[in-house]
């Protein structure tokens, strides 16, 4: 691993001076000075909401800064657009894979720049050769003639990276590239990065995984709350130090946890392996208990919830609800057994946008509660119940008939909550219920979740925001790469320790663990 020496100090590839960015109600970046040297792999780390993505989007000109300056290759980026910085050799590989599924690997790599024969037809042989040149740099074992739709997700991601190389980038930004990669593909990526670094390519690497940061990066910049905390060579910033700087000592508004009696086991998950992601998931949930599940993007949290609920298939495993086995691929049966899933993608999975608040709220409980002789809907009773929910949940809507698509994100989430509260479930699976919701809305949702627990429901609370998990949950499961890496008790753990496991820390690396401050 090359340590940058002072001779390279003048050789800065990208830097920002005093960059600030405001979004409605929040300052995402605060007078940020950030610099990346030519030919280094520079890790950018920070908790969710620290400003990593905003900074990268400003560098690639997807966003424009409100204050300050961005310099790429010593040129001020003011007035530059996405195309201009691409021309300077900047390439961002983001998390969506933009590939054409039914074209071959070779064709996807060369899409838009297919070599032609004398007769203006596609020169398939030269196209394969050209694609091979780029693919060989990163993953020679992928077959160029395969259609992209037949590849595994990790291989698709590698093809996407190979594709971005065709523009001959000089600066490469990778946004959590390994979230979709398996072990083998990750090794491919790393040896590629080690290679290109020697050829003078500059890489900015956003990641949540400690191991890989220390394996491949030269320097690290830590962001927190839109501010740069430190930039340092990796060997001068041990893991424990890094995590402490990510978390900081900020005081977050906490919700007082209401302690309720914890009862019998109502949900047991045994050796569950969801088909999408995850292996050997085992846990139990008691009535009145709030169980947090945390982990970085791609760790497999949502996949577990969907596999339990039956909205995604599972490879193997048993799910017991109050001792009775639930064997279903059908969410309707899960609902009958007393399960409720409040999905993360509430627009796509939880709401019918152009329908009214009333219809959205009662859709899961119509048959149980509002149908006369299972035939027609008792509208008066339905409306009454919805009005009651609107009052208790403080839903900001003009009335029961307002279309949900015109409500704010937080209000929509409350409608989804209301829907499941009406269903009188015993077990609630919340998938990132507070994502994208303002502080006031969050507190409403915490209050509701605690109310559910008080009434004896068991709650699985999936979240990436550690403060809320710490203050709301009784126990916390940390997932890492599809497995449960650690179970922690919310009363004895703290943010540093959780983050340590979220980022793939191993239990025996005790040196860092002992230094956790306990005065959280």
């Amino acid at each position, binding site marked *: 691993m090359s340590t940058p020496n002072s001779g390279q100090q003048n050789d800065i590839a990208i830097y920002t001076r005093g960059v600030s960015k405001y979004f409605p109600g929040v300052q995402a970046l605060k007078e940020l000075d950030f610099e990346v040297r030519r030919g280094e792999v520079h890790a950018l780390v920070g908790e969710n909401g620290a400003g990593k993505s905003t900074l990268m989007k400003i560098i690639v000109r997807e966003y424009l800064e409100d204050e300050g300056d961005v310099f790429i290759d010593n040129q001020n980026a003011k007035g530059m657009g996405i195309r201009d910085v691409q021309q300077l050799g900047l390439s961002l590989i983001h998390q969506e894979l933009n*590939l*054409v599924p039914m074209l071959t690997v070779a064709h996807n790599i060369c*899409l838009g*720049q*297919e070599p032609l024969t004398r007769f203006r*037809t596609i020169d398939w042989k030269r196209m394969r050769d050209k694609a091979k040149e780029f693919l060989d740099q990163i993953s020679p074992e992928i077959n160029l003639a395969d259609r992209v739709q037949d590849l595994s997700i990790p291989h698709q991601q590698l093809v996407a990276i190979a594709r971005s190389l065709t523009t001959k980038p000089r600066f490469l930004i990778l946004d959590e590239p390994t979230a979709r990669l398996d072990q083998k593909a990750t090794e491919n990526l790393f040896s590629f990065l080690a290679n290109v670094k020697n050829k003078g390519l500059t890489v900015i690497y956003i990641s949540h995984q400690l191991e890989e940061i220390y394996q491949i990066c030269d320097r690290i910049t830590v962001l927190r709350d839109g501010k740069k905390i430190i930039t340092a060579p990796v060997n001068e910033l041990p893991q424990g130090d890094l995590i402490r700087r990510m978390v900081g000592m900020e005081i977050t508004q906490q919700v007082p946890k209401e302690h309720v009696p914890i009862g019998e086991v109502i949900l047991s998950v045994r050796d569950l392996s969801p088909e999408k992601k995850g292996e050997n998931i085992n846990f139990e949930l008691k009535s009145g208990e709030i169980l947090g599940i945390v982990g970085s993007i791609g760790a497999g949290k949502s996949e577990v919830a969907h596999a339990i609920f039956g909205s995604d298939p599972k490879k193997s495993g048993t799910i017991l609800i109050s001792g009775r086995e639930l064997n279903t691929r059908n969410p309707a049966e899960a609902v009958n057994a007393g399960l409720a899933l409040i999905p993360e993608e509430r627009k796509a999975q939880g709401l019918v946008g152009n329908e009214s608040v009333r219809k959205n709220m009662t859709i899961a409980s119509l048959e149980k509660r509002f149908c006369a002789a299972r035939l027609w809907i008792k509208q008066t009773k339905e409306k009454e119940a919805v009005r009651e929910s609107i009052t208790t949940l403080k839903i900001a809507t003009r009335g029961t008939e307002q279309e949900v698509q015109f409500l704010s994100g937080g209000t929509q989430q409350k409608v989804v909550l209301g829907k499941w509260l009406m269903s009188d479930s015993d077990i609630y699976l919340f998938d990132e219920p507070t994502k994208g919701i303002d502080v006031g809305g969050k507190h409403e949702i915490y209050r509701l979740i605690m109310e559910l627990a008080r009434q004896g429901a068991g709650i699985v609370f999936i979240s990436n925001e550690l403060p809320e998990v710490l203050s709301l949950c009784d126990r916390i499961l940390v997932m890492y790469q599809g497995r449960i890496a650690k179970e922690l008790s919310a009363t004895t753990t703290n943010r540093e320790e959780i983050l340590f496991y979220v980022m793939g820390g191993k239990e025996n690396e005790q040196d860092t663990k002992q230094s956790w401050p306990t005065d959280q």
Partner: protein
Amino acid sequence: MSRTQSSLGQLISNYGTILAFLVAIIFFSIATDTFFRLGNLQNIIIQSTALGLCAFGLTLVLIAGEIDFSYGGIIGLVGALLASMLQQGYSPLSATLVCLLVGGASGLLNALLVVGFNLSSFLASVAVFFLCMGAERVYSHGVTVWIQNRTMLSLVQGHIGPVPTPIVLLLGLLFVCWFLQTQTRAGQHVRAIGENIQAAREAGIRTSLVKSLVFVLAGLLFAFAGCLETLRNGGAIMYAGKQLLLFVLAASFLGTATFKAGKANFPGTLVGAFFLITLMNGFTLLGMKFYLIPLAQGLILIASVAISSIRRGEIEQVKF
């Protein structure tokens, strides 16, 4: 996924429509003594010509991830123009060119509505369909005009060597369409746009331009198909396009269940067109009541598409 299936299963899922087609041919050959004769087989191909060409146009649009119903109106409008221009003494060439121009213009209108005004292609093309139908009615006053021009009629009645001209036209255009779509950069970009327009855009493909070209080319194919259909009928009959509306749609979507894993493709479309006409021809020869033929056709289509798509678990999804 599909790789774990047995090879027989895969064969059925990939070529289900073709198998059903072959079964139908064998059945009709045994059940009637008139079906499997050169004259009848030629007849089937000639009857499929206008249908096939029109379906090529639709297939091109389907590959680009859009849909186009405007042929339902273009065919009739073009027919009325062709017949009356020939009657008024215009040369076959100039009459045909005017027809193609009208087809191209309709395609351009589709492109303007879909690409320019961001309308759904379903709605836009149905609107253009109605416009053309209305124009046809205004132009022809509902009068059937017969065509006497021998040069023009030879396009459907003549032979090139021993082979009937329509067969040459149909197979020739199949080759041209297939070649342009699969072997040229622009043709492959059409597929890329239909599959993942975001990816195409990021690859620097000018998606609006390509999509517009697709609609214009389809309009030209519709117009040419309209000329041939009119010639085959011997004259311009009111609303000729409506007759073909569902057949063209069925041929293109049958094509998606043939050959290429649930995606629109030209050879599949031609098989679809042949299949539909073969069924109609065979059942007619069997002496089936004409009003029962659609019933039988419908059942057979469901069965043939079902065997290939159920195994595959997917059929063509068009985003309107």
